[in-house]
């Protein structure tokens, strides 16, 4: 066993995929000699040559569009959008072509391509470098959307994404690039479309993905000290959603909080809350609560700590899960200071 950061595990996954399959190509902005601004592609051009790993012109729609063409012709392109907000120029290509090509051609042309996107905040970066864009993709049928929370998953999910016959939007939680773990690479973890219980507990299910999994695990640890046994589910796949694992947990615990960085309104937590409630309605002791980013543009670095879900905010949500039937007809929504969704 050796220690790998998530960035290193991703690098290794790309290297192993390039070595295993000659049809894999890696390109984008600065992924060549520089090795990417987060060094995820470090050393790959040197090892596999400019034909396999290279810098393209600076144009995201062109990057994704050419990847569509390559995938139509049997290549497996893995392209990078340098930051979340810089994936937006490619949005039309993603929604109108990447997600639809197989369907448009009645199954004849599939697109085995991967779009890697570092996403989320927490690294003190300036504007446009902290967006959480997962919902734009997760709401688009025809895409797989996955996001690892651990180095082992980073490796395994990326390998699987590259091997998948369909396009995968691969979201990399940039604040976790440097998080290390002991892991034996190469490793294959659970299949790409499955959620995983990271910690078992009986009182409440905490649901998270990507950058928030570690935060939620911390919150669970803190909750334990207050006598609350929280179960933690790491979704891993945002599309498709693993109903089975999540509902099994929530039916056991009867309470759930879903946590993410993205704006709460219309965020991924809405889908989780809606479907979990529909499937677990009579098991629920309290409404599924959401702890997300505020409904504001991603803030400047000096203020991001106030915006991002924190351990305290997660504990606060757990507190509001109506533990002692505080509810009365006069204070109908949620007792205590918060009357509303939104954080």
């Amino acid at each position: 066993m050796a220690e790998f950061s998530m960035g290193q595990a991703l690098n290794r996954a790309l290297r192993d995929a390039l070595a295993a399959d000659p049809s894999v190509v890696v390109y984008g902005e600065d992924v060549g000699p520089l090795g990417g601004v987060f060094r995820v592609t470090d050393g790959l051009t040197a090892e596999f040559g400019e034909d396999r790993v290279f810098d393209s012109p600076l144009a995201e729609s062109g990057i994704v569009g050419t990847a569509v063409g390559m995938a139509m012709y049997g290549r497996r392109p893995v392209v990078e959008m340098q930051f979340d907000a810089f994936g937006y120029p490619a949005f039309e290509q993603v929604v109108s072509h990447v997600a639809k090509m197989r369907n448009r051609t009645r199954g004849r042309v599939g697109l085995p391509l991967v779009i890697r996107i570092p996403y989320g905040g927490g690294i003190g970066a300036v504007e446009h470098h902290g967006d959480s864009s997962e919902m734009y993709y997760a709401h688009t049928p025809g895409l797989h959307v996955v996001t690892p929370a651990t180095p082992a998953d980073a490796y395994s999910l990326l390998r699987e994404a590259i091997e998948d016959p369909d396009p995968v939007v691969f979201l990399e939680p940039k604040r976790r690039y440097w998080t290390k773990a002991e892991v034996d690479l190469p490793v294959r973890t659970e299949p790409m479309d499955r959620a995983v219980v990271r910690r078992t507990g009986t009182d409440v299910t905490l649901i998270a993905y990507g950058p928030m999994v570690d935060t939620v695990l911390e919150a669970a640890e803190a909750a334990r000290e207050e006598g609350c046994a929280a179960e933690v589910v790491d979704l891993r796949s945002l599309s498709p959603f693993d109903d089975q694992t999540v509902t099994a947990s929530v039916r056991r615990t009867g309470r759930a909080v879903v946590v993410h960085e993205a704006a709460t309104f219309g965020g991924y937590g809405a889908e989780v809350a809606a479907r979990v409630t529909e499937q677990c309605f009579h098991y629920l002791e309290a409404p599924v609560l959401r702890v997300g980013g505020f409904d504001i543009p991603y803030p400047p670095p000096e203020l991001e700590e106030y915006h991002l879900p924190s351990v305290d905010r997660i504990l606060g949500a757990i507190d509001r899960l109506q533990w002692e039937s505080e509810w009365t007809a006069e204070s109908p929504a949620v007792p205590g200071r918060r009357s509303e969704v939104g954080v």
Partner: protein
Amino acid sequence: MKRTDVRPGSAPPLPPVEPIRLVDPDGRRVSDPAYTAPDHGTLLALLRAMIIGRRFDRQASALTRQGRLAVYPSSYGQEACQVGGVLALADNDWLFPTYRDSVSLVTRGVDPIEVLTLLRGDWHSGYDPERHRCAPQCTPLATNASHAVGLTYAARRKGEDTAALVLMGDGATSEGDAHEAYNFAAVWNTPVVFLIQNNHWAISVPVHKQSVAPTLAHKAIGYGMRGHHVDGNDAAAVHAVVSHALAEARAGSGPAIIEARTYRMGPHTNSDAPQRYRDDSEVEYWKERDPLARLERLLRDEGRIDDSELERIRAQADRLAATMRERLSAAGRLAPEELFSHVYASTPALLARQRQELLDELEA
């Protein structure tokens, strides 16, 4: 010292403002310093394909009026581009057509009924792209241009000399995606020829509101590639220029942009109302420059075709039209549950449940 400059050599020449022409509107040969007309066999093939293409187009328009197609964007008047471009392709080349380019697909050999699938509304694209080496017809403007760049890049990496012809309209050149594709093609030196059919209109917007450059082919110079400007109603010239550009591209001399000046004789689609934005006199002007008439005249004058041969071709075209009607009527309807069949390679649980719900609903 390593220098990291742009300029790899001298600039390609500017395209001529007067389009290249090999046959004038009266069917007389025009000499050009750089191009010679295709041989008679090719000219006959061009005429034949244009006659069949126009008949297909007329039939599709009629079927639309009868409500048997959802929509049909006609290429009436643009046959020289549709046919001249496609017949210049080698078998292993790829074609990237738009919604406007059904005739190019028929010319390429795609079953007309499969071409009409999109417009009939049975499914999005009805033919097998790989079999015909034709990408699905593209509606989001200019978005397929970069696909062609990626595809030929991939082919070259496999050691193949596959080139691609991208069809696009004058309006589409204003989109950012056009620019990105031109530039990727030039920088990667992939064998792609971008054939801009300047039919003077983007729905109701005239081309002088899209660009104030001398020609649309002038864009090429900004990417360091060759630009060509051709009479788009002269099938011989279109064929010659596209062939030349494809050969150059295949040989590694770089991609090219071709502007073909032509005209959309009909409405944008059957549901358009061109009287709102353009004068009939403009259509009259272009009627005199019809691509079929001029090539027919040339071939007649040079004794290469006669009434009976023309009759034979027209009869063949009529038979095609009749079959279109029949086969369209005979075509079965899709099973609704096919909605779920092609979203992913294998159907995820969520979609399997939704399919079951639909089936239950249909049974109820």
